[in-house]
């Protein structure tokens, strides 16, 4: 095998180069039904190198499972002032929300998309499993590595702490979707444009990022 073959092999799906990753983001954005998914998204640029792009998706979900038992309302706050509409609104209108910022970033080492996320308010790892990981996935996600597939690390561009889903299994998980037919014809079933849609179904779903896609 020559060097040239090796290089082109390394960049073939499921692996992505900087260029094909940008095309994959464009493909995903074209399919995103942001209204139906109740999420916001924007394409961002690395502060260090504007040609490095990544996708940020933000979504809020009810904070249904309390990480810690919370004291009853009347123990921590004065009774609401009934003449003050804001006071009433704050007590009755909102169930606590968990806002999750997801970042889809290309790993230059793995040549694969990697999913980073932060939450507001910040929550601890056991609560992340309760709140974001679907029950049927918890055992599988927890079984990877030293303490599961979700680890804390630093955001590659924002220089702040965040969570990420370790990409060491991503290539194997994506391979069947991009594999050539057995006769070697017809190419992969999923191309660059549809790549991140499939990827979200595998990696995103594991941490609560499910996104309805329009057919294009």
């Amino acid at each position, binding site marked *: 095998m020559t060097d*040239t073959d090796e290089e082109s092999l390394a960049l073939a799906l499921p692996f992505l180069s900087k260029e094909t990753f940008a095309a994959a983001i464009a493909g995903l954005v074209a399919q995103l039904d942001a209204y139906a998914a109740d999420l916001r998204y924007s394409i961002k640029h690395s502060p260090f190198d504007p040609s490095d792009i990544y996708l940020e998706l933000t979504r809020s979900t009810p904070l249904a499972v309390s990480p810690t038992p919370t004291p009853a309302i009347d123990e921590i706050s004065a009774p609401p002032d009934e003449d003050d509409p804001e006071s009433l609104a704050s007590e009755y209108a909102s169930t606590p929300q968990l806002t999750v910022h997801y970042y889809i970033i290309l790993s230059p*080492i793995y040549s694969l998309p990697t999913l980073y996320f932060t939450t507001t308010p910040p929550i601890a790892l056991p609560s992340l499993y309760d709140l974001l990981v679907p029950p049927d996935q918890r055992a599988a996600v927890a079984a990877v590595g*030293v303490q599961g597939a979700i680890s*804390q690390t630093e955001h590659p561009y924002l220089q702040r702490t965040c969570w990420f889903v370790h990409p060491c299994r991503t290539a194997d998980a994506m391979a069947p979707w991009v594999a050539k037919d057995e006769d070697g014809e017809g190419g992969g079933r999923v191309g660059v444009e549809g790549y991140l849609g499939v990827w979200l179904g595998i990696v995103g779903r594991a941490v609560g990022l499910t996104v309805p896609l329009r057919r294009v």
Partner: protein
Amino acid sequence: MSDALRRAVWDGSIPVRVLLDPSECRIFDQADAYYLQAHRVAYLPFYLPRIYRFFEPFLIDKSVATVESAWFEVDNAPLRWHWPIGLLHDFYTALDPTKTASTTTPPTNHDRSASPPPPADPEPGVPQLPWTITLRFASYPHDLLTTLTPTSTHDSFINTIKEADFARNGTAKAVMSLSPTDSRRLFASLQDHDFDGFWGVCDKMLNHSGSSVRNVPLRVYNPETGQVIQGSMPVRQAASLRGGDPQTLGGALNSLVPMLFPSRRSVVLARPVMHGVVLPLSVPLVDLMREAMYPDGFLHITLAMMDDDNDNASSYMRLTRGEEDFMVDAHPPLDLLLDGDADWVVL
């Protein structure tokens, strides 16, 4: 090749002075300083238990100031638990080994010298030894620092090992195929500073049958901007460029960070620093990896920016000379790194 270089890297260490933040101290400003010789390849959590025990009598409220809430900072920057200590030091001091170190007399652990005595205006890049870091408990900077748990250092280390393995071979099979015993030993031997234990397992990964090392995982840290650039650099030069020759460190830096390394043969704007010494650009990348990588499998290289007048005046000359010197010896002895004053142990 003997393992002299590996051992030198393994045994590299930094004298560290730990101060208790005055606000955490029962007798304001009066805690003793704790001195230790920290291994460059180790992580701060390895030393935390003994540091905590030392400061325990000085703490205002031990129920609040617990081991779990401890963190270190230097110049208002929290020290990342998951970076090797050598990298932390070289990054936060913006170490430039070409500048002369200033040392103070090594004190003992019970000298009362808690007030930080840095000289008036320490020149950037000049190491002030011992390296002084501050122990704190209040206001854990969750935004900037990962949470320290009993498994987090191991978790982050193994994740980085896998990443390095993937970079080298295109799969993480070498690390995945380690026996559970070997896998545990990899981290335990690092904690115990057991050279033979660690390299016994690590060499199984580096020489895994059925995979050949194709790339070298590399991270370049710019202390001035905080930027970290990582890459997986091929061990051989591209076919169009003296194809097949081993890639040199200079070639890799030129391709990964071209703005700072416009030449593959001469430093122009920045010097690459690792384990406290300036690395020669001509060293073959794969040899540098096998002999001098950090235990997590990466070459963690910090930059010493060449920003003084002398440097600028002569950088064009260096560049010109470098480009003329095209037929550079591609196989310089790696032992260059062990030469004379390139002292790995004391800066």
